[in-house]
């Protein structure tokens, strides 16, 4: 047994090593087993169960989030195609109305031209008729003048 005399102690001292040592070691080993069954195991179970629960929830949330993102992308493409489809329909309708307008304009122009032409022809024929009549009258008148002049002589 190791024992130093320290600070004038008659017995023992600071470095008095005896059976306290092995008994304390046994006590600590026993405490390890007691704490393991009383503290480390039950608390560990609860904490690890919760950690698993949380990590499962995170994984689930992540998969849900990716699903949402996929749906969102899907929706975007659908929206885009619908938008381009609408644009196409609007363009088509615009073209159609343009065509119709042009056709109507042409028709109206033609009609107007035709009636103008007809009017011109009528005017022309009437003018020539009037001219014919005038020249006939002039002939008649000149004949009359000639006759009269001849008769007076």
């Amino acid at each position, binding site marked *: 047994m190791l024992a130093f005399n*320290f*600070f*004038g*102690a008659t*017995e*023992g*001292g*600071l*470095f*008095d*090593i*005896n*059976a*306290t*040592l*092995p*008994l*304390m*070691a046994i*006590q*600590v*080993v026993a*405490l*390890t087993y*007691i*704490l*393991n069954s*009383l*503290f*480390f195991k*039950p*608390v*560990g179970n*609860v*904490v690890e*169960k*919760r950690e698993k*629960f949380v990590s499962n929830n995170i994984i689930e949330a992540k998969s849900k989030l990716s699903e949402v993102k996929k749906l969102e992308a899907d929706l975007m493409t659908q929206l885009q195609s619908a938008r381009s489809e609408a644009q196409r329909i609007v363009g088509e309708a615009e073209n159609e109305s343009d065509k119709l307008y042009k056709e109507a304009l042409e028709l109206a122009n033609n009609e107007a031209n035709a009636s103008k032409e007809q009017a011109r022809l009528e005017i022309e024929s009437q003018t020539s008729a009037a001219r014919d009549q005038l020249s006939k009258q002039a002939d008649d008148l000149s004949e009359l003048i000639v006759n009269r002049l001849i008769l007076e002589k």
Partner: protein
Amino acid sequence: MFLNSLLTNFAALEVGQHLYWQIGNIRLHGQVFLTSWILLGALLVFISLGTKKMENDPKGLQNLLEFLWDYIRDLARTQIGEKVYRDWMPFIGTLFLFVFVSNWGGALIPWRLIKLPSGELGAPTADINTTIALALLVSLSYFYAGLSNKGWRYFEYYVHPTPIMLPFKILEDFTKPLSLSFRLFGNILADELVVGVLVFLVPLILPIPVMFLGLFTSAIQALIFATLAAYYIGEAVEEHH
């Protein structure tokens, strides 16, 4: 003159006096067991209360115990490594709790008010027997951890970088428990002595900062002891490539 009075005060502190229990022809330091039983009893009551009704949504004491568990797991995991820390976590945690409760119990409870026929109550870790017991348990643990994990390949550790290391590594097996036990013993005993002497010399106010410093040292020593124990075990189970 001053030195003389100091020495008398030291004598009044009863350094190195023990309350002997005689069982057959073995002798025990009774004051160490008395305080350790009181403190460990309090610890076990505290833990039983905290784990009585475990819920998924921790409240009150359970919260504190879970924090403690997490703290010990982090300590064990960082020092020992992911692979085997689970096997050693209860041992490391018990060392930490035992040293911490002993140190703080010794510093916080006014044991001096309880008169013993011989010696006086105090922190169990201020007795060299306790700290040597803890340090030897650590030594046994790291040998066991190394041998059970790697078999005879454990002894490769002694010649690991080069065979020149062999004497130093063998020496380390002796210095490890020595430094572990004497560091803890010295720190706690010195703190008790400083507080005791100051209380004798200046009973008012002046000892209080030293007492706070003592609480700080006590907590640090518990952490150092547990961390070093875990580090030694981690060193023994580590695979060299």
